[in-house]
């Protein structure tokens, strides 16, 4: 049971004891003033390279948590998103990508949106890249305020999905649902890390499930990831299996732990394990296999 479940349960106990009409004691949650110490903004880099694609990169700035985005730091500006969120974009960051050949590709500051992924980016390369397993890329991002982020990423090997399948439950009405299984074979010689995402419809939409998996318990064996009964008849489900490196896996875990700790009194907060140095963020190469099924 997670912390919210725990809080819900204990409140249910409280509610059960308060049937006599004492429930009007007011809310158990309230907004408070928290005087946080000063926080120095850091450069945040997010870059996922893929073979055959023009590299794109997002450079933003971290901000004090309770900052309400009224003003941007000098050299940066605020990007207002459609949902009201704002992101602080530094406009003075020069980014270089060092290819496996040793050649440097300068990435221009041209904020835009990637039509394929639906993602925003701030910097874009000049040509598609070639990424083969074992090759190393390097990143260098530097602004005019002395902040300097560097990182390297090695191309993982390709791990194919062996099979995908689904099965509906016995219901015949609107509660008819299917589980979905994705199966692949883990190589025995290496310690491997995976990210498996299932999407309904276009992969650019929110994923239905998103799991980070390491092979500690099934090294060298076939492995199957099974969902709950959650998909409806005629759903199109796309399974995307990424074979990732340990740095990206750690980054993902630390992001998850950090997000879970905000609001979970039982969780120990975690620092962010960035794959880059000098700032916060991730620089990695994605290698994936995809399979799609229409559930009938």
């Amino acid at each position, binding site marked *: 049971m997670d912390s919210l479940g725990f809080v*819900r349960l204990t409140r249910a*106990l409280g*509610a059960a*004891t*308060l049937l006599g009409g004492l429930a009007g*004691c007011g809310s158990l949650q309230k907004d408070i003033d928290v005087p946080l110490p000063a926080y120095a903004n850091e450069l945040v880099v997010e870059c996922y390279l893929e073979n055959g694609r023009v590299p794109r990169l997002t450079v933003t700035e971290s901000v004090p*948590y309770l900052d309400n985005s009224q003003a941007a730091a000098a050299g940066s500006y605020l990007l207002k998103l459609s949902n009201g969120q704002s992101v602080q974009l530094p406009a003075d960051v020069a980014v270089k990508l060092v290819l496996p050949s040793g050649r440097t590709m300068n990435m221009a500051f041209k904020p835009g949106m990637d039509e394929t992924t639906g993602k925003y980016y701030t910097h874009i390369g000049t040509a598609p890249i070639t990424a083969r397993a074992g090759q190393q890329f390097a990143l260098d991002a530097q602004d005019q305020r002395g902040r300097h982020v560097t990182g390297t990423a090695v191309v993982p090997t390709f791990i194919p999905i062996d099979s995908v399948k689904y099965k509906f439950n016995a219901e015949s009405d609107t509660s008819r649902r299917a589980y979905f299984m994705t199966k692949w074979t883990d190589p025995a010689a290496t310690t491997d890390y995976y990210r498996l995402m299932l999407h309904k419809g276009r992969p650019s939409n929110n994923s239905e499930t998103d799991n980070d998996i390491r092979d500690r318990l099934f090294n060298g064996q076939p492995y199957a990831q099974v969902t709950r009964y959650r998909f409806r008849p005629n759903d199109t489900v796309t399974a995307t299996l990424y074979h990732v490196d340990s740095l990206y896996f750690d980054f993902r875990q630390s992001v998850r732990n950090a997000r879970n700790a905000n609001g979970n009194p039982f969780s120990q907060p975690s620092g962010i394990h960035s794959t880059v140095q000098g700032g916060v*963020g991730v620089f990695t190469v994605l290698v994936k296999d995809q399979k799609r099924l229409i559930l009938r």
Partner: protein
Amino acid sequence: MSRIALRNSVLISLLVVLLPGLSLGQVRYLLSGIVRAADGTALPGATVAVPAIGLGTATEADGTYQLNLPAGPQQVVVSFVGYTSQTADVKLTHNQRYNFTLAASQSELGEVMVRGQQSLKEKLTTTQMGVEHLSIREAKLLPALFGEVDILKTLQLKPGVQSGGEGSSGLFVRGGSSDQNLVALDNVLVYNPNHLFGLFSVFNSDAVQSVDLYKAGFPAQFGGRLSSVVDVKLREGDRQKFTTSGGIGLISSRLSFEGPINKGKGSFLVSGRRTYFDIFTRALNRANAGKEDYSPIPDYYFYDFNAKANYTLGEKDQLFFTGYLGRDIFGFTSPNGFKSNFTWGNTLGVLRWQHVFSPKLTLNTSAAVTTYKYDLNNSIDQFSFNLGSTILDFTQRADLDYVPNERHTIKVGAMLTEHQFGVGRLQRSSQDNSVNFGADVNYVGQEAGLYASDNFKASEKLQLEGGLRLSGFRSGSDAYGGIEPRASARYSLSDKVALKGSYALMYQYVHLVSNSGASLPTDIWYPSRLSVRPERSQQVSTGVSYLLGDGKYLLTNEVYYKWARNVIDFKDGAQIFANNDLDSQFLFGRGWAYGNELYLEKKTGKTTGWVGYTLAWTKRNFPPQLGTTGINNGKDFYPNYDRRHNLNVVVLHQLNTRIDLTASFVYTSGAPTTLPLGRFALQDIYQGGIQAVPIYPDRNTYRLIPYHRLDLGMVYKLRPSRMGGNRDLTFSIYNAYNRRNAYFIYFDQTRDKATDKVTGYAARQVSLFPLIPSLTYNFRF
């Protein structure tokens, strides 16, 4: 072990060996026996005294006592809280046994009135310091959350003891973490003494007799944990008649049955309890069924059973049995076929044989088994996922009590435990075998302890207790051992003022794997191994006790300093579930705790109670290690149970023979917590909405607001029913002035209600319990 510690150990060993050589030349005989209530139950903590010569003692946990008295006629007075005192004229011509049976006083709840002043006097004159004795009767009078009497939560009202958080029964004693408490039920370890994430303890108030909490100066017979000993004793059944008792509360009900065995040669007690808030949650789920944003609350309940039996085999031999079985059960079945079952709990049993060789020499031998386990089973269609952990102990021990003369009380003993650790058991499988893998990490360890101690009355003013414990642990080819000296002393400046001091060194060979800071059912116990060395602590404490107001009040001030090494924590983001390489997740560091505890008690008169104030500091340090930066880059930090100030005020007032009023007030400084300083936006691989990811600074750099709460209670004794027996109604109001104490704080987006657009960020404080009234009906017939 360092040279200095070794030297200290040797000195204390010599003290223990040499002190018994001193004795008196007067003709004296030993008077021994047992003090029981009229129903045959043994009464621990009763006072047995000979006022004419100023000698007295308190009965042991099993009601036995020993007094070394001059030959000739002696008038012996026995008194105990809630019972009418009894006087006996005994002519001592040889060592002899004399048993006492005390009748309950007129008002069953009048314990606070009749308790003799000698109990405070006893406390003044004992060498033992840092100990709190609590009878279940006191706990039953005090107000309780949901009306559930909880002896561990009552201990939290004593100085030097912190709770783990709102409503939690976890104990944090003098800067120790909750896994550093040796919680024992009739001398058998209870690994997880909590139900429902620590909201309730596993001890059923109907079955418990009393609890002793040792915070310092640990007697040598105790070992294996760093910070405290919580010694819970079950009561014995009625030896004279069959009795049924119980209670009906808002969330649980209790039922006990007890009676004689073989015409009073023995007695038994069985007691059970079950919650029924699964009925409430099911009703809530039914009421909200069909609502789109409503996620059902899982079924949850817990139950526990206690059993105790004793049988007198002969004048010199007695058998005792104690058993406990408790389970917490979560169950969830989704309408579309997903099932989840989560079960956890303790089971224990112990058989003890007591043989009295002579009034001077008593042997207790016992064999015990205790286990804690949890099992989580999820299944869907043909696929299943099982996760679990177990610890199983088999323990044998022998304890010899020897009283050679009135100046010495010698205790010698040995114990051996076989631990079986099922650290991680994970299985993922399918019926068609398309998925089948798992892990099963098991260890075995042997833990041994050998101890000797002597309580030596050097003079009327000076009393010393020296002890030595040799402990060892082996797991596979890894073996550890240590010498644990224990010492305490009392010097009486007058018959009203006593100075005390103590020292104790403790080793802990079994460790709790938990990075939650709370007691969770998924906690795992782990042995000391090559890379996980035993934890070790040392504590010195000193204090002064002052009997005030003609002996009605006892004012005690104790100062302590505790330091520990090899204390355990976990790496940032440690993976402790389904990890067959847990060794790599530990961090090892040092700890310090120091403070001052001021304690004023009143135990006689219509109004009794206590006031305790603690000023304390607790610190930890985990330097960089194992490729990590440690915790907070190796800087000292305050763990989340550090509290600078802690004030407890407890008042019990007997309004008349039928009504008792009680109140307790708690104030503590805010708990250290970790709040994010910054955030950054993460898009991830696909655009699925930008996530705000918190950036946390060093651990525990922020403090929650101070915690304070007033609880009120009333016990109303009803007139006997037609069937006879006693009945009462117990009213409790938890958090009487409805204080919004902070359970935790989180940061969240604020949104415009009309457009649902993000407008900013806010800090939100969550409280767990508002004012909660409760009513419990108790009966006994």
